[in-house]
């Protein structure tokens, strides 16, 4: 009824001129337009292209379908995967493996992370501060590094080179060294920290007065935990669980390096298998399935828990936090945590580092078996005949990959962080308006996709010329790697951009507008100086994330543009010492970056593992 009060205005040229002038002369509108077009071209079109490709016949399959022409509609690829023996015999086991891994990783890492979170936030455990820092270190270590460390410990004859344990004469069976158990345990060591971060965040927002009230009412510690604390953090717990399932199902690096020796396949490795072989487009079908599984769980999570999530922050006015006394249980708990951290972090890392100095892996740490070959060796003077690589100092592959990695991280993270601030600006200033909503939703899409599936999308989009040759085939170019890294990190960068833009009240800009400052002056004089800190910390976190990324770029790698993580992955197949040395370089680099980021005030908990 109210709407009817708005009369339709009659058309006049003056009005049209003024309206156009109003839209075009405002640079903000132009930026919004460009951003939406870019997001559409970089996210929606590639996705649709890949989906479309799965229904169109490609040249390679023409032999099997002689009466079709290239581009004809077909269900061949979907049928291949779901309805042929060739397809189902690999697909069904891989699907089962992925689901099983997702399930077990979640049910092991959730309680582990949650209990640790409670101990760190709520209890009077001694040495909380130090332990709390140590607990999240595994999250900073890329998960493929952890699988290298696992291999350094458990490798057996199946892989050719022995690991620490088999070298000591401990018989390590294949089922422990490789395959599901290894994958689940290594992923757990990664995702427990994720659960820890989410749950501890939620616990911190719960006022301890709520628990103290229970104590006054006469509840004991178990009752308080069960009926007050647990329900309050349940939404965060469920969110963490869903995210863990979604992430572990889509993860590629760990499954690939721990499954390679026994040919253990999960969906993500199967995707790569098809993309590199035939029928290639079956890989796209798997990519779509992965996206549906990952995004389905995340969207379901938002729909189901989104509303209830709100009460995790209801905590009254105070944020007083009185620790619960653990009494005599304190020391056994500290001991348990220390043992856990030793087994989960110190031991594997020790094995990894030491292995890089070994002449023969699994040959013990005697002086006669120690060498610096992996670091500074030269193939001409190799100590053992079967060595196939140069030490890093003389290794052209390594130097190339190092240059690529640095170039990629610097270029992509600067662009990403910059775009992220702009996207954040658009979504905060457009809050409640259509373009703000669209920006927010579009930017979020890459978040729903596992890295390897997102890589497949770009593979589908850019492995041939597009727009009638206007965009050349980008496959094998550095540009494509940069592009995919940028777009995949949009959600994170724009979230950090949004967070920093939220700090800048619109009134600060309006005050400048009234003073006569143009849009660009406002950006330069008001927004940028105030967003600087958020920008830098966002940049550092994106930088680290890109530097250690493996899943995303695995399907797009060609020898000329290999990065360090991919090189380490390649070396791990038969040159473990070399792989270890590369991994150590990356680890040192990442730890250095985290330290700098921390000094600049970035929150490690916000980074993506």
């Amino acid at each position, binding site marked *: 009824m*109210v709407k009817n009060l*708005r009369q339709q205005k009659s058309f006049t040229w003056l009005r049209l001129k*003024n309206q156009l002038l109003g839209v075009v002369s405002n640079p903000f509108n132009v930026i919004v337009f460009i951003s939406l077009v870019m997001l559409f071209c970089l996210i929606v079109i590639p996705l649709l292209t890949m989906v479309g490709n799965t229904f169109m016949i490609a040249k390679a399959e023409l032999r099997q379908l002689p009466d079709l022409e290239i581009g004809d509609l077909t269900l061949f690829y979907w049928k291949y995967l779901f309805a042929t023996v060739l397809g189902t015999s690999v697909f069904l086991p891989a699907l089962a493996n992925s689901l099983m891994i997702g399930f077990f990783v979640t049910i092991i890492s959730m309680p582990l992370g949650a209990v640790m979170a409670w101990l760190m936030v709520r209890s009077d455990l001694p040495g909380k501060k130090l332990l709390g820092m140590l607990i999240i270190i595994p999250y900073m270590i890329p998960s493929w590094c952890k699988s290298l460390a696992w291999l350094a410990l458990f490798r057996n004859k199946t892989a050719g080179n022995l690991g620490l344990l088999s070298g000591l004469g401990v018989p390590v069976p294949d089922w422990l060294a490789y395959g599901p158990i290894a994958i689940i345990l290594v992923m757990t060591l990664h995702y427990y920290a994720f659960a820890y971060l989410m749950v501890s965040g939620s616990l911190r927002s719960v006022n301890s007065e709520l628990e103290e009230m229970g104590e006054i009412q006469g509840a004991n510690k178990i009752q308080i935990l069960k009926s007050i604390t647990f329900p309050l953090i349940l939404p965060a717990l469920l969110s963490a669980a869903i995210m863990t399932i979604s992430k572990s199902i889509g993860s590629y690096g760990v499954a690939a390096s721990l499954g390679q020796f026994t040919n253990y396949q999960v969906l993500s490795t199967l995707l790569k298998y098809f993309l590199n072989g035939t029928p290639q487009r079956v890989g796209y079908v798997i990519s779509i399935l992965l996206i549906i599984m990952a995004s389905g769980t995340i969207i379901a999570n938002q729909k189901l828990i989104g509303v209830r999530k709100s009460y995790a922050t209801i905590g009254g006015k105070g944020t007083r936090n009185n620790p619960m006394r653990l009494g005599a249980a304190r020391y056994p708990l500290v001991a348990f945590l220390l043992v856990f951290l030793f087994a989960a972090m110190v031991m594997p890392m020790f094995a990894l580092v030491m292995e890089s100095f070994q002449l023969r892996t699994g040959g013990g740490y005697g002086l006669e078996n120690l060498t610096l070959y992996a670091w500074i060796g030269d193939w001409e003077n190799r100590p053992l005949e079967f060595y196939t690589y140069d030490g890093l100092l003389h290794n052209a592959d390594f130097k190339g990959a190092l240059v690529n990695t640095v170039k990629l991280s610097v270029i992509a993270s600067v662009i990403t962080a910059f775009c992220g601030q702009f996207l954040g600006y658009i979504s905060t200033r457009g809050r409640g308006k259509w373009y703000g909503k669209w920006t927010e939703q579009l930017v979020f899409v890459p978040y729903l996709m596992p890295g390897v599936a997102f890589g497949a999308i770009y593979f589908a989009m850019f492995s041939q010329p597009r727009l009638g040759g206007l965009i050349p085939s980008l496959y094998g170019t550095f540009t494509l790697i940069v592009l995919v890294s940028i777009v995949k990190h949009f959600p994170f960068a724009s979230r950090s951009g949004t967070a920093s833009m939220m700090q800048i009240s619109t009134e*600060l800009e*309006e*005050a*400048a507008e009234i003073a*006569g*400052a143009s849009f660009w002056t406002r950006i330069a004089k008001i927004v940028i100086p*105030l967003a600087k800190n958020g920008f830098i910390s966002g940049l550092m976190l994106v930088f680290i994330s890109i530097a250690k990324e493996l899943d995303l770029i695995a399907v797009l790698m060609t020898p000329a543009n290999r990065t360090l993580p991919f090189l380490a992955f390649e070396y791990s197949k038969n040159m473990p010492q070399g792989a270890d040395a590369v991994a150590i370089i990356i680890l040192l680099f990442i730890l250095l970056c985290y330290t700098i980021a921390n000094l600049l005030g970035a929150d490690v908990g916000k980074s993506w593992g």
Partner: protein
Amino acid sequence: MSKIVLEHIDKFYGSNHVLRDINLIIEDGDFMTLLGPSGCGKTTTLRVISGLEKPQEGKMFMDDRPIIDADAAFYEVPSKRGLNLVFQSYALWPHMTTYGNVAFGLKIKRLPKNEVNDRVMSALKVMRIEEYKDRYPNELSGGQQQRVAIARAIATSPKLLLLDEPLSNLDARLRIDMRAELKRLHKETGTTIIYVTHDQVEALTMSTKIALFKEGEISQLDTPLDIYTNPIDLQAADFIGNPRINFVDGTALYNGDSLLVKSPLGEYNFPGKDIKADEECPLGVEFECVLGIRPETIELSLENPERKNTVDATVYASQPAGSETLVTITVKDAELLVIQIGLKDYDVNQKIYATLHPNRMNVYNKQTTRLIKYAHTTQP
């Protein structure tokens, strides 16, 4: 220096009609207050005038220069309107010093350096904050930040100064100081000021005119004294005045000559010259009405003063507050709040006498809530 005319301004947020046909003329040199509860459209009106919001309908002129013409989709940019705005949050740029904040607009205008300096220093001097010129906003107290915000707004010598609830973040004492400061500023600069507030005390003490807002419309436009003496409807009467006006239900009969009102306070016959004889006041039929009685128009005495319009009353509660005493009394089943100057004390349930002044009362039609009988500001 500036006369502002708003004609038929309509503003929608989606399907939400927030400003309904706003018509307002602000004369040169006025201190115009837009008064109303939160969400009534007063801040939106201010933002429309400033140029931060674009209305879908209506026109606006400043000194006969068209500023807004919604039909032609013409909206002058804020910086060319010759105005400045003080935000409720002050919106001081946290990365600039006091000096930097005040100088920003002048630098944007590319004034010569020494002129920028002169103008900044004189604005700081007017607001008496010269000594804080090198401090950052977070090193200033709330009251000092407020002064910086005003200094920033007046440094560009605007023809029109807009103030959006500038005092609401200050504590009670500072607020009184700043009220005096703003009033002095208005006198000294002669700038036209539009002031938005929900605090009727601010509106009554500072303005030359008040526009009372209600659900996106201007319900009354008058001088502070007229708004206080004759609020246009029950809602306005309830909103204006602290402590609140007393309402007493009764019945009324208008014979074209005078208005006869019966209530627990007795019978009053109001003369025809005070009656707003229109459709709000039906002729010849008895209808329900509400008497509006300001707390300060009731006199209390311990002995029967033997005066007209005196009724027996009982003390319900008494709140001595130093300079004044608030006394709640009951007359039959009506409850009245009375203000007495000075320190008095009464016992609960004490019998006293209340003298009323019918010519200072308002009468409202209960059904339409509109004013039907004007009050006078003085007793005869």
